[in-house]
């Protein structure tokens, strides 16, 4: 059965590596849920955190295919409970008046989030957290009218 898996890859910090990884995953018919990439404590190495939808056999294929790439130094699957994951969310939500904005701010606070911006008609809520928490926040914001939403996708580290 297909489910979401988090793969953490250490890759060479060259141009073209992202294209190789993304190309390989799409060419093999896997769906990328999210992919983040940035440098690590070693500036010659980047870490990619990839969330894919796949069943167990396909997941093994993705991992071993990634391992075949010369620029991929290490591939690890991060298993549930064994890693910390975070993503960042920005959501613009309609707020007709000041009372509404205050209500949204209170809601945000319950999720450890804050208002990043505020206008007469809307507020921008900034939240960091694991995927599940952010999903819950989005559900609570939805009735208020989300006009724009952006999420970074997951970054993760082993515990």
């Amino acid at each position: 059965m297909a489910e979401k898996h988090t793969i953490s890859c250490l890759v060479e910090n060259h141009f073209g590596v992202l294209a190789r990884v993304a190309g390989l995953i799409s060419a093999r018919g896997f769906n990328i849920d999210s992919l983040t990439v940035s440098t690590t404590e070693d500036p010659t190495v980047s870490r990619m955190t990839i969330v894919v939808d796949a069943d167990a056999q396909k997941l093994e294929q993705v991992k071993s295919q990634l391992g075949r790439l010369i620029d991929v130094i290490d591939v690890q699957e991060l298993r549930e409970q064994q890693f910390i994951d975070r993503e960042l969310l920005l959501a613009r939500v309609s707020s007709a008046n000041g009372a509404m904005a205050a209500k949204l701010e209170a809601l945000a606070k319950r999720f450890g989030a804050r208002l990043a911006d505020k206008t007469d008609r809307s507020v921008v809520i900034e939240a960091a957290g694991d995927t599940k928490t952010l999903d819950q926040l989005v559900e609570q914001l939805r009735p208020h009218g989300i006009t724009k939403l952006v999420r970074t996708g997951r970054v993760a580290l082993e515990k």
Partner: protein
Amino acid sequence: MAKLKGAQILIECLKREGVNLVFGIPGGVNLPTFDALYKSDIQVILTVHEQGAAHMADGYARASGKVGVCLATSGPGATNLVTGIANAFMDSIPIVAITGQVRTSVIGNDAFQEVDTIGITRPITKHSYLVKRPEEIARAVREAFHIARTGRPGPVLIDLPVDSTVGEAEFEYPEINIRGYKLQARPKVDPEAVRRAAEAIGKAKRPVIYAGAGVLHAGAWAELAELAHTTRIPVTTSLLGLGGFPETDPLSLGMLGMHGFEYTNYAVAQCDLLIGIGARFDDRVTGKPDEFAKQAKKIHVDVDPSSINKTVLVDYPIVGDVKEVLQQLNRLVKAPDTSEWLKTIAEMRRKYPLMYKEKTKILPQYIIQQISEATQGNAIIATGVGQHQMWTAQFYQFNAPRSLITSGGLGTMGFGLPAAIGAQFGRPDAVVWDIDGDGSFQMTAQELATAAQHKLPVKIAIMNNSFHGMVRQWQDLFYEGRYASTRLNPVDFMRLAEANHCVGIRVEQKADVRPAIDRAMQITDRPTVIDFMVEQKEDCWPMIAPGKPHNEMLGTYETLKKDGGLAQHRHVAPDEESKLSLG
């Protein structure tokens, strides 16, 4: 330290990698490279088309075991290489393709003859390099050859913008240190996995070895023979594995799969242990993957972990160099009692031999049998793709490693002639034949000029049926005989040969087949093309229809026998039978 131009650095690197021959075509942006080659002692084989250069590098690599090198200019030169690179990728052949590129300052500007070569070839190369500065050339070349030839071999592309070849840098040949590749180059073999596999072999009652091209890449044919002989386990090979185990050996089952031998596929369907060695369970081998060797536990030895459990789930995976694993296995393994099983197989071999019906016109199967006899199974045989390729696999008796040069994974029509040319350059003393179809041959026929220019004694046998024969067969089987775009306009290949300064022979009668082959064998100073006018609608049997299991074959011995008029086939030679039944 004295500085060298980038192109000279490239030549110095090629020399250090043992390259003395390259295939290619010059153009605007790779002129500095060709100029440096001109001044060096590396031989440059000018091809007619870049696809020819890539296939020649491929054929050269397959025949010699060395890395083949092809060169092309940017843009159309590079795109013309693409089919050849993809072909090498699918069959894990070590080639290095060196393409010219527009100067770095205009990359991305849609400059004249610019394409994103790295982007286009990314999914069909093992790795690639865009070398933007002359200082980076040496490392790129060093790593490219290392990556091409180690681990699971494959094509590596080096894209050289013209300014990096004219710019100067100090030359130093670097040490190899690729942190993401060390384990791939030579994976560590898990001794426990080998031990478990050896134990399974010792307990097996109906084991079959299924050997692929990995045996040839690893140079492990002696180790394979040792395993088969000490355990008395019969060996079937994939198309690309042919030659890895001599077909004269009583334990040889020949080829399995879509057009494999009937009894071989039955043996695989009945076996209780399948020992896959350097083979990737391709769909042409497995048919319906869930049904493939359904009763069997499966061992899979492969250097590439991504090959394991890709299409067929296995019980005993062993990742490692095939030669190293076989050596370890040979030390541990205890022979099971296979005498009953070998008797069963001998019986099936007797009951379901490979046969064909005599017809008035010449049959390709007969021609290939005659070539097999005339060369005693010791020639290098290149093929195109189609019916003639499958008949070659069935009717030529392959006895030597690296003797079949054929496009397996990609199925590239037009591979035969340039691959044969490359093979002849790689093994100058070998007898090299291209067994081809008229459709396949015409896709790269222009390379006759290359063969003639170098007076290569390559022999080309064209099974000329004026059809894309395999597609025509599928149209008869699955499309009610509607021959959509499969009839070919007849071509006079004898005159095409003569126009290219080759010997041309046309054969229309069965009696003239062998004399023509013998005559071609005598010609050593130029290529010979034999245009065999064969039966137009001969079908290739037996066949497993796509997605069907191995015990549901079409064109079996029983169905052919009903119509009568069967001719004998080599694979039921009585002495082989008696040896086999003695166990």
